[in-house]
């Protein structure tokens, strides 16, 4: 009798624990194959996963996302969305819920997360400057007004990136300066200013090793380069002929430098105003070649293995994406994924690419080897696509 009871209890226990572990096995998941897509006109985002290529949730109430970008917490659970209207929103992508939202300025352009994942920096147009927040609580930690000149005017801030050593680097559009902020002591930022770097820096990027910060100049030709390993040498001008040239060609959408493709010995850059992608030697910063392309390039992005570079274009030639083979430096494929292609994002190891078509309300997924369209997801005016693999990369 007792033995029988014991067996029953054991069986019951096995069944119960079996059930429990089975249940948790179903609900637990990692975030490594997840991402967030901005739906720019409706102030919402969709949380997606790239293994089954599905949408998991939609999160609303994020304000004006006409220009928006995302960084991830280092555990890749939280997405921080920087919106145009100065909104900074923290989203729990596992729960598919908005955790916290603060309006931190009147008008913002983007943000970055510190090396240790504890600080968020946001670059603002109005009032011009950078604000630094605690990544957990979104409480304000430091305020860095971008004041310049004798009258103490405030400049719009662009091209904000993180750099090793709890640093942030950014450019002052109106002032023509690059600032390096050291936030090792978060409440007492140490600022190093580089003046006269060039006219109207409009965006910046940092190489994936965190060594080279480069600002694009709208007001003149050339680029401003800061070697983070040799700060004392100051900002150097490179590629004197890079830019809009003598004719100052009109630019229908500012190129985004974040996507600059650095592959092996070469960097592939969007020409400003011209229908070209420039190939530049990364060691001496000399131009090697220019590749004629379909339109004014906006994003020039390398597949994670660096073998291909994918390019999208400015209005009104924005229905096309082209693929450049980085070895032959030739266009090997032209795709028309839909109207108003705004962004592309590769899966972590690059076998697939997700492409947003704003005016077709579509995100299309392509195989990067066969260029076959694998699937598509309905989204409302999708723009930026951000996968969690960004969580562990410098400058993204």
């Amino acid at each position: 009798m007792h033995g029988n009871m014991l067996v029953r209890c054991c069986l019951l226990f096995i069944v119960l624990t079996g059930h429990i572990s089975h249940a948790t096995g179903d609900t637990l998941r990692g975030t490594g194959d997840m991402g967030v897509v901005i739906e720019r006109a409706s102030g919402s985002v969709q949380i997606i996963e790239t293994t089954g290529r599905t949408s998991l949730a939609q999160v609303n109430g994020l304000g004006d996302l006409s220009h928006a970008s995302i960084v991830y917490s280092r555990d890749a659970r939280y997405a921080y969305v920087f919106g145009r209207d100065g909104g900074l929103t923290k989203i729990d992508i596992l729960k598919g819920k908005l955790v916290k939202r603060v309006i931190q300025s009147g008008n913002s352009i983007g943000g970055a997360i510190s090396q240790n994942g504890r600080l968020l920096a946001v670059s603002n147009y109005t009032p011009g400057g950078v604000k630094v927040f605690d990544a957990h609580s979104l409480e304000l930690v430091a305020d860095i007004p971008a004041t310049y000149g004798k009258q103490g005017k405030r400049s719009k801030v662009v091209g904000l990136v993180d750099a090793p050593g709890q640093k942030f680097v950014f450019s002052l559009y109106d002032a023509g300066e690059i600032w390096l902020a050291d936030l090792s002591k978060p409440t007492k930022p140490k600022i190093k200013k580089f003046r006269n770097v060039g006219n109207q820096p409009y965006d910046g990027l940092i190489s994936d090793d965190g060594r080279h910060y480069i600002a694009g100049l709208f007001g003149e030709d050339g680029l401003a380069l800061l070697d983070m390993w040799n700060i004392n040498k100051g900002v150097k001008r490179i590629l004197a002929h890079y830019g809009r040239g003598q004719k100052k060609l009109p630019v229908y959408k500012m190129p985004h430098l974040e996507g600059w493709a650095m592959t092996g010995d070469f960097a592939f850059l969007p020409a400003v105003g011209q229908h070209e992608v420039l190939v530049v030697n990364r060691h001496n910063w000399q131009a090697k070649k220019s590749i004629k392309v379909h339109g004014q390039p906006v994003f020039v992005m390398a597949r994670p293995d660096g073998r291909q570079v994918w390019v999208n274009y400015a209005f009104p030639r924005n229905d096309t994406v082209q693929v450049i083979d980085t070895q032959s430096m030739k266009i090997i494929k032209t795709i028309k994924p839909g109207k108003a292609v705004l962004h592309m994002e590769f899966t972590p190891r690059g076998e697939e690419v997700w492409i947003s078509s704003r005016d077709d309300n579509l995100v299309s997924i392509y195989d990067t080897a066969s260029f076959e369209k694998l699937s598509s997801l309905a989204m409302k005016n999708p723009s930026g696509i951000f996968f969690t693999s960004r969580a562990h990369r410098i400058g993204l």
Partner: protein
Amino acid sequence: MQKPASLVCINKSFFRIGTHQRFFQTGLLILLLLGLQFRVEAEVPVARQDVLRHMLKQDCGSCHGLTLKGGLGPALTVNEIANKPRQLLRSTILNGRPGTPMPPFRGMLTEEEVHWLVELLYKGDV
């Protein structure tokens, strides 16, 4: 609101003529007004208006904000532009503004389309 000169003229003559003529002239006036309205709308066809409105919101919005509160480009809300001459806005859209990232849209947009877009901005009807 100021009445157009031609309308005042017709109104004056309105009382100097017979009933039939008055009826006839009223008809003409209505036709004329309808015609005018039709002409203005015909300059930018409805289908094109949708394209323009979309472009203003989405593409201009990249720099000026979806809510037109500004970005790299200045704010274009009704309050912000109220004191600016319409001609300045029209010319900025057509010719761009040198020294800034604002590109010229001549060739992509006709003068009538720019006119229509600027009116939309002043009405705050984006």
